[in-house]
């Protein structure tokens, strides 16, 4: 399954990238699976996800939960709690 992963704000800075396209193995089917898979790749993902508190996610530009399912071609974003307004 191929996914486009986006990062914003503190997470984008910590990773020094705003997007990447990843090919994930069959077992990665939810937001929480993807996060664990990214962290398991090592640095810089392990440190970045550890240092940003309460990382939130969106799938296809809608707020997602840990169990939100992924699909081939999905756009998944990770970011800190929002601070607009």
């Amino acid at each position, binding site marked *: 399954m191929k996914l486009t992963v*986006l990062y*914003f*704000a*503190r997470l984008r800075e910590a990773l020094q990238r705003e997007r990447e396209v990843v090919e994930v193995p069959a077992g990665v089917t939810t937001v929480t699976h993807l996060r664990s898979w990214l962290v398991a790749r090592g640095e810089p993902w392990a440190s970045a996800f550890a240092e940003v508190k*309460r990382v939130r996610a*969106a799938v296809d*530009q*809608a*707020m997602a939960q840990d169990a939100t399912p992924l699909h081939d071609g999905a756009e998944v*974003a990770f*970011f*800190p*709690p*929002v*601070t*607009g*307004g």
Partner: protein
Amino acid sequence: MPVRVQQEDFDAGAEISRLRARDPKVGAVAAFIGVARDVNDGDAVATLSLEHYPGMTEKALEDICAQARARWQVTEILIVHRVGELRPTDQIVLVAVTSSHRGEAFAACEFVMDYLKTEAPFWKKETTPGGTRWVEARESDDQARARWKEAGSR
């Protein structure tokens, strides 16, 4: 367009005039303007940089408008949110709601702001004497959003 994300400043008076000119049944306009402060968490703030998630931001704001429309009898809702580099006293966000009566307009305007603060993908970074830092989300914003759940359906 009921939802706009832009770098440019906005003229709240002109926006409201345009919004209510569309319907003679409008009897109330409630508006909120968020402004950049020169202090945050005890430190002087020189500049504010606003980042967002293009595409999702507009969807999130439109979804918040739809939720407000489902709860209150409002005529129009307008959200204008700025991004990019801002300074203290600059306007950040405008929410304006028109309705037949004030109660609906007041409530919908506050609801939209409370949801925007916790659901719309914007992030602020501020420059202080100690350097730049990302603004931390406030628990009080989550509490402000939560009270609408107790009061209603979502």
